[in-house]
């Protein structure tokens, strides 16, 4: 059976995962292990007048209690946002200071004020209860529109009116003129609900300071350990990079929430030095709700103008994005360059203007969560298209098709240049697979059972393969977004691939090995993927933004090109042939058209014995490469959702969900389908179940699985997943990325289906039975 590109290879990593042998951060136990618990603010906004830790420190087994004054006193720097966004008037964003442990003020429920180090985890938690903090409560604000209101409580002094920046993209005047001349204008107000990421493995950190070597080791639940080390060194001044090793071992899901460098890792590293103990902290689920960066939380108004033939003439969007109490690592980029740049959707639109105001509130920081900006853009676009079709009495599929971009490359008015796609092919494939022509009969049959059946479309596009370094640099990114790889052929011919990508559920150990097995025609078992350790992999940018295939694998391909060239040189020398005649196949390196051949392992051995190499060749067989993408990649597709609503209760079943995706080249269809399944589950979760709720005082009131509804198997249909692909012209494998598409494309398909079923468009996410029932009642 083939194990190369396109093969459904079962996952190499699953043996350890399904037998309970995975090694996660919390599994790490060092000598001299101590445990940390954080003292966290129960108030959304308060001055810290004093901290009395005497009772805690006096407890047997409590090693120390450390606070923010000590932390900043030791020179530990403030937490940064890594992407500078300017307001439309040219002024820089108003970033407030964020110390890993609050010094004089707390700004959200969960803001840490002290770290307790004790001999056991239980003791640390009990001692944390004994720390008395004198809070002077201040008025708080949780909702983004209220934060912008006159007289709202100020979260940070240097962000007047809580406005972080007032950003725009596109041409305002031209768009206004286009809308003024439109034959029809569709208007909607839309809310993109705040979500909690809920990775299966909670965040954790184990920090160890080696006094003799003046060296730190940090095990942490990170999607990008190298970026963590860079930021911990350069900005937080924990230790210089050569004195800090960061290891992200097995990580149980991230969805973006493990990109960022959080206060806990910083505090644990610093505390390990202060106490000269190895310090371990592991979040519990309740703590995760108030410390893991949340996602989404946009409110938008949008206007889309059409000419008499249904051609879009202009789109104007005004968005307020809630960034929470502090600016997390990529928070500024998510509602701007990852959102507003996708507001052309799959459509050829000449005039687009989007204004985005981001605001501080007394809530958990908001940052990238699966899709990061693109789900919000897709929700605006696809709710608008479906609504416009209904208003104009047009078929929603045909309205989309009539506006699709047909020719590539296509430059949108909002920066992005789409490189390839066949949007109509995906729409057609999805409609056929969903048997759209039979929908009327299904609706009629559902009615006999008292159910309202509805159908909804979503034709999404996203930008991933993040990202061309020079382009993002010009937009304010603080780092380049290339990737690195090193391919090491051992003397016995087995291969280790070191990658800067990080796998936390994506199956890289399998898919990355597939492209190596294919290239060198070797058993996949002979290939090992190494990642997640700054002592092993020199540098890398990690995994997020569906970048590992398009950027990470491309770096591996570049390194393999170099290995292949050297292998051919060695073989040509040994076999006394021309390099151009050397072929690699079947575990051998051969001279084409002859019976002269060396075993693959013999080439490896030759490279390391160096007994007979070309005169100018260095020994060894190890090549590295850095790959910087030329463009984003643009996965796209159409999702069609069918629902049945019980009008008496509002209870809604997703009865059919069909996906047609264009992910470019597919390395492992089984893994890709798994990614799509998971993404759609999260999208249906957002559309129908999930929402973080804050009360007016800034208290998060649904911080457990009793009150925060996660999607479960019984909430989800048997998906019908299909592919109609075009090749990405901008990377060597032609891949586009598949990690986020499901979560990006599905929410509008679900809401479009439910609103179709109930005959009223006024329905916000999450469409709980109560919300659906209320919408039905309001429309009566």
């Amino acid at each position, binding site marked *: 059976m083939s194990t190369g590109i396109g093969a459904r290879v079962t996952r190499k990593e699953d043996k350890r995962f399904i037998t309970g042998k995975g090694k996660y951060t919390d599994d790490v136990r060092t000598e001299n292990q101590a445990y940390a618990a954080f*003292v*966290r*603010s*129960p*108030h*959304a906004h308060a001055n810290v007048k004093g901290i009395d830790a005497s009772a805690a420190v006096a407890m047997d087994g409590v090693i120390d209690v450390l606070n923010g004054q000590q932390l900043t006193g030791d020179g530990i720097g403030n937490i940064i946002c890594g992407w500078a966004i300017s307001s439309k008037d040219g002024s820089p964003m108003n970033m407030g200071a964020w110390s890993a442990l609050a010094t004089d003020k707390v700004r959200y*429920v969960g803001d840490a004020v002290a770290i307790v180090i004790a001999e056991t985890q239980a003791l640390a*938690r009990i001692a*944390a*209860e*004994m720390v*008395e903090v004198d809070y002077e409560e201040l008025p708080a604000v949780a909702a983004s529109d209220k934060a912008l209101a006159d007289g709202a409580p100020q979260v940070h002094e240097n962000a007047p009116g809580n406005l972080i920046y007032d950003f725009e993209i596109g041409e305002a005047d031209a768009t206004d003129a286009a809308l003024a001349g439109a034959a029809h204008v569709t208007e909607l107000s839309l809310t993109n609900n705040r979500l909690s990421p809920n990775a299966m493995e909670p965040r954790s950190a184990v920090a160890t300071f080696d006094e003799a070597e003046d060296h730190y080791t940090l095990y942490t639940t990170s999607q990008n350990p190298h970026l963590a080390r860079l930021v911990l060194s350069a900005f937080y001044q924990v230790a210089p990079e050569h004195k800090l090793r960061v290891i992200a071992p097995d990580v149980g899901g991230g969805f973006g929430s493990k990109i960022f460098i959080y206060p806990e890792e910083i505090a644990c590293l610093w505390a390990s030095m202060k106490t000269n103990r190895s310090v371990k902290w592991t979040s519990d689920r*309740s703590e995760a*709700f*108030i410390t893991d960066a949340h996602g989404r939380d946009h409110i938008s108004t949008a206007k889309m103008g059409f000419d008499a033939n249904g051609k879009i003439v202009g789109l104007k969007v005004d968005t307020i994005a809630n960034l929470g109490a502090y600016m997390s690592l990529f928070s500024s980029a998510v509602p701007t360059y990852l959102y507003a740049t996708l507001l052309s959707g799959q459509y050829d639109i000449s005039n687009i203007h989007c204004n985005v105001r981001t605001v501080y509130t007394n809530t958990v920081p908001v940052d990238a969560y699966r899709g990061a900006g693109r789900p919000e853009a897709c929700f605006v676009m696809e709710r608008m298209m479906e609504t416009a079709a209904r208003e104009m009495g047009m078929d929603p599929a045909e309205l989309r098709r009539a506006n699709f971009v047909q020719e590539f490359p296509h430059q949108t008015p909002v920066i992005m240049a789409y490189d390839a796609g066949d949007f109509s092919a995906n729409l057609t494939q999805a409609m056929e697979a969903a048997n759209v022509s039979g929908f009327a009969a299904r609706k009629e049959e559902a009615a006999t059972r008292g159910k309202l059946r509805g159908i909804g479309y979503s034709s999404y596009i996203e930008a991933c393969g993040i990202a061309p370094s020079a382009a993002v640099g010009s937009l304010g990114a603080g780092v380049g977004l290339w990737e690195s790889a090193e391919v090491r052929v051992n003397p016995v011919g087995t291969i280790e691939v070191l990658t800067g990508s990080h796998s936390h559920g994506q199956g890289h150990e399998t898919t990355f090995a597939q492209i190596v097995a294919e290239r060198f025609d070797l058993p996949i078992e002979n290939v090992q993927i190494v990642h997640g350790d700054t002592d092993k992999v020199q540098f890398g940018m990690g995994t997020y933004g569906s970048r590992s295939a398009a950027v990470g694998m491309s770096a591996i391909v570049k390194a393999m090109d170099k290995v292949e060239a050297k292998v051919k040189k060695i073989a040509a020398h040994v076999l006394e042939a021309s390099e151009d005649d050397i072929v690699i196949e079947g575990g051998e390196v051969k001279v084409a058209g002859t019976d002269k051949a060396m075993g693959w392992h013999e080439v490896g051995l030759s490279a390391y014995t160096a007994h007979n190499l070309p005169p100018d060749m260095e020994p060894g067989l190890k090549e590295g490469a850095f790959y910087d993408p030329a463009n984003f990649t643009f996965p796209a597709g159409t999702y069609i959702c069918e629902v049945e609503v019980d009008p008496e209760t509002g209870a809604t079943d997703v009865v059919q969900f069909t996906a047609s995706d264009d992910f470019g080249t597919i390395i492992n269809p089984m893994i890709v389908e798994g990614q799509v399944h998971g993404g759609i589950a999260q999208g249906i979760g957002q559309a129908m179940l999930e929402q973080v709720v804050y*009360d007016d*005082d800034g*208290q*998060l*009131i*649904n*911080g*457990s699985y*009793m*009150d925060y509804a996660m999607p479960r198997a019984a909430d989800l249909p048997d998906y019908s997943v299909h592919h109609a692909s075009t090749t990405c012209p901008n990377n060597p494998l032609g891949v586009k990325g598949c990690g986020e598409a499901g979560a990006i494309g599905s929410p509008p398909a679900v809401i479009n289906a439910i609103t179709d079923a109930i005959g009223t468009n006024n329905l916000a996410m999450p469409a709980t039975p109560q919300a659906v029932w209320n919408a039905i009642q309001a429309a009566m």
Partner: protein
Amino acid sequence: MDMTGSYRISATRETVWAALNDVEVLKLCIPGCEEIERTSPTTMTAKVVQKIGPVKAKFDGAIKLLNIDAPASYTIKGEGQGGVAGFAKGGADVTLSEEEGETILEFTAKAQVGGKLARLGSRLIDATAKKVATKFFDNFHDHLTDKDPPGN
């Protein structure tokens, strides 16, 4: 949510008023009250154990008497820190009126929680607060009208 209630107590308004200002009576009547100590004519400190939803916490709190219009009305306010469980705050406006030698006690109470209590117990806070307020005034009524004071 505002909770309201009304009790008819067979005692004079002066007796009821005195009891409302008696630390020992408050200790017996506040559900879960383990300690209470007067720190001034209008302030007290207290330790109260309460279970709200899945969270049981001991609150170190302060009680204040405000808006005193003896013997007709006052506002009693309590605020407690429950460690990592968060905090709880509550208060009641209490008015006393005379009717045929007996006293009509009316109250309007509200409660608020923060931190873990809010995160895990918000669904239950209104019900719990109502239970606590009702229990307090039930206890208070029984204390003034029954032989056996509550808590025995």
